[in-house]
């Protein structure tokens, strides 16, 4: 049983909608403080190469086909709410027993030509072999009603923890958007492929279902894809056609437990020579899909063919070097952890040929 801390809920982190369950962010705060208090005042090593983790998950399926006949899109300027969500995680240091990570999520929505955002975090965790299961399960249980938690999968490794915790926060934020937005477009970062340890299929199905109930359409944009047809990336096989348009793919199958909850398209939304993999909720009727994309075209801005709302969500949750310094400062000041800078063994051994540790 986790020791419960009394966290005074200030208006700062009371969510405006009374219908929203705020248990998860409160558990994030509790677990964050709890894990940091477990660090004995000792030296902690700065990362020689701080890294930001963004999840890239794709497998190589078979039988994928790309229909190179473009589906032409016409911007529809009917006022529509566009909302997007993204999360980011970063390792900010190491202790003798584990790692110190930070997680932050951001939601951005565009309404009447104005963008607004809500940023949640950063939450800082000290993750060790001893507490990783407890932290992970507590957070899983907090929002996902213990139904999925702990039973169906092995505990993540220490290096997987940042991504897993960020995924929990991201799914929660996606659920909140699905619940609070109606008749809007909800943009996810990544794909709608689920059944992975990060994204259990049932959880994603529920999010999509809630979104549909509120007449929302979920569009998931992947910045990068490894899906190939005839050896070429699907986003590189663009026809000579005036954008905006979509290219449809068919025949994509994954082995269980991986399931695809969306149909995959290649979207080229403006004249910039960039196209993105786009997953659209499979349960959404074809007509609605095209309408949703046309509303997106008519309501949002595009930089290099990528929706501005989603770009802002990404920008706002990304940690800058300045913030990493600030979090290191916070850890030192609030928790008395002295920072040391151990020599980088790669640099030490190989001099200019040492490129530092490479994280995967």
């Amino acid at each position, binding site marked *: 049983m986790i020791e419960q801390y009394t966290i005074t809920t200030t208006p*700062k982190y009371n969510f405006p909608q009374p219908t929203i369950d705020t248990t998860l962010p409160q558990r994030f*705060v509790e677990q*964050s403080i709890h894990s940091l208090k477990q660090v004995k005042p000792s030296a902690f090593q700065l990362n020689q190469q701080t890294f930001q983790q963004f999840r890239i998950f794709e497998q190589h399926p078979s039988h994928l086909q790309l229909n190179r006949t473009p589906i032409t899109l016409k911007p529809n300027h009917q006022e529509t709410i566009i909302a997007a969500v993204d999360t980011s995680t970063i390792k900010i240091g190491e202790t003798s027993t584990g790692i110190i990570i930070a997680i932050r999520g951001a939601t951005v929505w565009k309404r009447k030509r*104005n963008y*607004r955002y809500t940023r949640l975090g950063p939450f800082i965790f000290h993750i060790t072999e001893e507490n990783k299961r407890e932290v992970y399960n507590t957070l899983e249980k907090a929002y996902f009603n213990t139904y999925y938690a702990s039973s169906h999968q092995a505990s993540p490794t220490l290096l997987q923890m940042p991504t897993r915790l960020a995924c929990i926060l991201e799914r929660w934020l996606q659920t909140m958007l699905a619940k609070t937005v109606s008749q809007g477009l909800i943009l996810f970062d990544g794909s709608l492929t689920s059944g992975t340890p990060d994204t259990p299929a049932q959880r994603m199905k529920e999010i999509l279902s809630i979104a549909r109930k509120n007449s929302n359409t979920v569009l998931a944009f992947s910045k990068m894809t490894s899906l190939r047809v005839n050896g070429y990336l699907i986003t590189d096989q663009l026809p000579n056609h005036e954008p905006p348009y979509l290219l449809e793919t068919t025949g994509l199958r994954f082995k269980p437990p991986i399931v695809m909850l969306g149909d995959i398209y290649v979207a080229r939304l403006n004249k910039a020579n960039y196209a993105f993999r786009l997953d659209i909720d499979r349960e959404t009727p074809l007509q609605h899909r095209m309408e949703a994309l046309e509303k997106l075209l008519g309501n949002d801005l595009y930089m290099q063919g990528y929706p501005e709302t989603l770009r802002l969500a990404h920008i706002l949750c990304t940690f*800058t070097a*300045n*913030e990493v310094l*600030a979090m290191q400062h*916070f850890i030192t000041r609030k928790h008395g952890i002295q920072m040391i800078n151990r020599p980088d063994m790669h640099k030490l051994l190989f001099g200019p040929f040492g490129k530092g540790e490479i994280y995967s």
Partner: protein
Amino acid sequence: MKLYKKEGNILQILSFPTESAEKGDYLLVEDAEAGKALIAQVIDVQFASIPGVLEELLRTLPDGGEPIQGEDIDPLEIAPHITYIQDASLLICKIRATLQNEMLSPSSSWLPSRSLSNIKKLSIPMLMKLAKVEGKLPIILGGTKDSSLLTIDASSLDGRLNIITGKKETGKSHLSKLLMVSLIGYKATVVIFDLNGEYSSLGMTADGKRNMYYDKIHALTPAQNFKVALEQLHLNVVMGILIHALHLPGVSAREFRRTWKSLKEKGKLTLHELGEAIRDLKCNQHVRDALSSRYHALVNSGFFTDNLAEATLLEERLLKSKEQGGAIVINLRNTSTIDRQIVVEYVLGKLVDALTSWKLKAVFLFAEEAHLYLRETYWDDIVTRMRHFGIFTTFITNQPDTIRESIYRQADNIFLFNFTNEHDLDVVSRASRVDAETVRSIARDLPPHHCLTLGKVVRDFPIVTRVRALDLKTMGETRLFFKDIN
């Protein structure tokens, strides 16, 4: 504060928002293990180069320049730490001295520990105490930023060459008046070339009452209460006027000398007789014309008289000042350029005479905008030869390029007010007692009435001071057309 870098005699110190340090402040970088400390002055304050700041700023303005509206839910309250890091500043400091065993040395050749050094602000009184800027003849210049008073010793102006410079309306004349009355207070003899008639009423308070200096200020206005009889003049002084102020050629000068001596032998050295003698002179027509034109220039100046009763004995005034201290203000306000030069030549000649014959011990000469009346050759004369006679000059100007570079190089003290013009700063930074970075960086940001004091008076520790107010009738105000309308 943390020591970040040392390059030559420049220190870079990382300072956090809770530690306020501004340009001009002094810092003590103590290395307890080495038993030494560096005294450094902040000459510039910059943002510390924090990685990621650009991204941080950019993401607040992603929407076509309009700040994006939103809410940050930051339960761990990291935001103040971000601001704290982001607002960190880098203090660029100039090493002024090393402190060891309470002794100062100008060395900056050692390196204090970066991790163990303790950096703290050094108050001006403490600095002055360490530098032993104290004496028996204190002159309070004004207040420093840490609310202490900057007191210099009057003896540090003795035998020195001083420059007061800054752009218009920054308070140069005010400081020169302060120095002047302070010197008079210590019974010094002061002569002022008052170009704008500002110093004549220094014996009065701002509300028109007599003050303690009333009997010590002697204002002399050429052609009014300041006239001289030829009889009182030494030939050398007259020759100086003719050659340097009136540009009399050599041949004519020889002829004049002969005429002068002849009149003096006859006891007929008056303006009238001199005019007659020149008219009757049997010599080359050009020489006679040259002498005649100079003679009329002397007459037209109104400065010379044959009436001994109205002639002023400058020497007497100087000797009177010698006893109790006093200032002879030569009011050059309504005097033409030629007449000004005549008067200045006369006064300087008389001063040299009085000093050479030890009638006077020394004189503090205050010269405002000296380029308007001082002949070319006098500049070097004043700072080299005349200094040895006992004329200690303070130049006051708002055009620093009118003072020769050689003067800056020999200046002992510089009182520098605000300058924004790069060219002006370039000129001043040629002074040997100052480094160009300090002048450029600090002088540019000085508010009005604030002065950067450099040189021997502050033992080469440049200090910014707000010059204290004086209850004197200054008369230095500019006449305004719209004054009454507004």
